[in-house]
Structure formats: C-alpha cells, structure tokens
C-alpha cells in the first residue's frame, strides 16, 4: 500500500484530518472546525529565520554585557546588568526567584538562539544538521519559557517606579532588550517547523537512506 500520509495533516487542537495544500506567500492555513493555525507559507523561512537569529545573538550579547539602567543618589551612581540583578537576588536569599529569572531571561533565549543556529546554519549550507530531532524538540520545549518581551515590559515598569524617587539613567542593555524583543519575535514568526522537516526529509532521501 503506498503511503499517502505525507500529505495529510491532523489539527493539533481538534485532530481533524485534512489534506495539505499549497499556499501563496504570506498566507496561512487554518482548521475549518476549530480555527487553529495549521501551517504558514514558508517563503525563504530558513534564510529569514537565520538572519534574524544571528542579529538577535549579537544584540543578546549586548543586552547581557551592558547595564540595564543606573540610578543616581546624591551624585552616587549605581548600575546593574541583568546578571548582577540575578546574583544580587541570590545573595538576598531569594534563590528560587533568582533561578527563575536566570532561566527565563538568560538561559532560555540563549538556548533558543543556539538551537536555531545549530539547526539552520547547516541546512543553509546544504548539509543535514547533526542530531536535528533533538534541536527541534529543544526548540519546541524552550519556546514558552523564553520571556524576553515580558522582561522588557518589566524593565519599563521598574523604570517608571524608580523615577518617582531617583534620577534614573537608561543603560545600553535597555535598548538592546527592546531590539532583541523585536528580533526574537521576527525569528519565531518566520520559522516554519513544517518546512524544515520537509527539507530534512528531502535531504535524507537524497542521501539514499531510509
């Protein structure tokens, strides 16, 4: 029996079985029964995601090296980077919160960017990425925990709270976080897992393996 399941797609929210159709650029297919987005058109998805990822990686460095903001009290200026904030909370015996912030604001974005690079760079160069099922799973797992946009809003809220009592100077990392938020959103929006799997399938078959 020929296997025709490759053109089938089952809605992840209601399990309705549907046939895959070709989409025009910028369009997406949604489930007729529950309205879930099934897949999007994948024009240049690998190129675009890779470009956004590499840009985001550079900005991510800046966001972690430079101070988020500094306050001035009677001519005495103190500044912190995000990691110093995490360390300071650890010292104040709020270890759980410190770990939570460290994981969601630093580790998760780093892992996400690293996985995108490890997956898409070999694909772009025409090779099969090593251990790609692992990276695809990591990406799926880490995505909800990467909270740079929430952190960005948190930085703005604390900025406004601080201006009531202090003179606050926004740091380099504040702008980096703003740009990083946009770049990560752009990378996530242009990434198309379905297209990546299809390309990997084609590569496997090209190599003459099962």
């Amino acid at each position, binding site marked *: 029996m020929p296997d025709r399941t490759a053109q089938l797609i089952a809605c992840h929210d209601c399990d309705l079985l549907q046939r895959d159709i070709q989409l025009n650029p910028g369009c997406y297919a949604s489930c007729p029964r529950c309205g879930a987005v099934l897949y999007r058109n994948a024009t240049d998805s690998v190129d675009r995601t890779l470009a956004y990822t590499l840009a985001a990686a550079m900005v991510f460095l800046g966001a972690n090296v430079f101070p988020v903001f500094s306050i001035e009290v009677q001519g005495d200026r103190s500044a912190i980077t995000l990691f110093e904030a995490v360390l300071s909370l650890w010292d104040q015996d709020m270890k759980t919160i410190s770990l939570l912030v460290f994981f969601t604001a630093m580790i998760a974005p780093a892992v996400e960017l690293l996985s995108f690079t490890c997956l898409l760079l070999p694909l772009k160069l025409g090779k099969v990425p090593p251990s790609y099922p692992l990276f695809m799973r990591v990406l799926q797992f880490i995505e909800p925990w990467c909270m740079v946009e929430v952190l960005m809003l948190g930085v703005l809220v604390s900025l406004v709270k601080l201006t*009531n009592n202090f003179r606050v100077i926004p740091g380099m990392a504040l702008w980096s976080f703003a740009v990083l938020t946009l770049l990560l959103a752009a990378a996530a929006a242009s990434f198309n897992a379905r297209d990546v799997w299809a390309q990997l399938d084609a590569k496997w078959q090209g190599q003459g393996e099962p």
Partner: protein
Amino acid sequence: MTSGVPIAAARGLCSCHVCQLVSRRAPGAQVAHCPRCGARLHFRRPGSVQRCWALVIASYILYIPANVLIMMETGSLISYRKDTIVSGVVHLWKTGSWMIAVIVFIASVAIPLLKLFSLTLLLISVQRRSTWNPRQRTRLYRLVEAVGRWSMLDIYVVTLLAALVQLGSMATVKAGPASVAFGAVVVLTMFATMEFEPRLIWDPVQKEEFHD
C-alpha cells in the same frame, strides 16, 4: 455512531507532537514511535486530565500565600511600606501612576485568575464530556496559552528593583515571601496549560473516546 467528520485517531492515524507527521499506528502495538523524529506517539496524551488537575489545584493553594503575604518591602528615610500584590497596585493607582497600575493589575491579578478559572472550566467540561460550544472552548484554551507568560512581569519588576535599590544607601527594596509563591503559581499554571489536551474538547462531539 461515527459522523462524517474525518478524525485522525478514528482512522488509526496518529499525529506526532514534535514534527506533526501523520503516521499509521499498528493497533496491537503497545509503544509506537514517530518514523521521522523518533518521538513517542500517543493518540491522546496519557493522564493529561489528572496531571492538569493536580497542577491547577496546587496553583490554587499557592495562590493564597501569593496574595496574602508580602510581595515587596520598600523603605526610605521618610517612609516604610510593605505591599502585597493588590496593595501594590492600589498604591500605584493612588500615587498617580495609573498606567503602570493597570498593566500590573492585568499581569498579576487578572491573568493568573483567568488562567486558573479557564483551566478549571475546561477540565470540568472535558470530564463531563460536554459538547457545549467546542470552538469557543478551544479558543479560550489558545488565549490561556498565549497570555500565560505575561504574569511573570511582577517577578521581573521585583528582581530589578530589589537588586538596584540595594546598591543605593538611601533606600532599600526587598523581595518578600509572596514572590516565591507567585512565581510558583506562574510556573505551575504554565505547566498545567501545556499538559491540557485540547483534542479532548472535541472527542465528545463525534461521540468517541481515545486513549494513549
């Protein structure tokens, strides 16, 4: 009793939760793996209702200390305040930062409650095999999934303020014990949302039941 609607599980087809490949699963086999990515295949995530209930109940319990205990202590030469989540919002509103008050209210009060109540509603309706408005309930689930992360806002604000103001000698800001409980509520409700299986909303519609 099958309606004309094609359901993957009803035809012995299983969609991989990692790569979405639809593959045929042998009826007798106990354990099946996706032929493309090797992930374990399930028609429906096993034990999802029970695990989701456990996480939701744990979140309800932790929600109490998160709101009763102190979230943030602020001290300066002239004043000293201890704020819970709600009193912090009220204080912001009274001091004129009403924009920030609204943002913090939505992130720290409205979204956690929305998540807990929505998940409870979804779990009860799934357990009663309700056929009431499945499309709206699926949309509610997607909303909960999308907004859940924003309740982390207060945790970040407390972290940044506590770390920065500690350095200045004139004032102090300290994170209170409520922040740990609140952080746990956020993480547990996020896990509960991931554990919930939206396809269970639709199974009673075509009067079928699938396991594993």
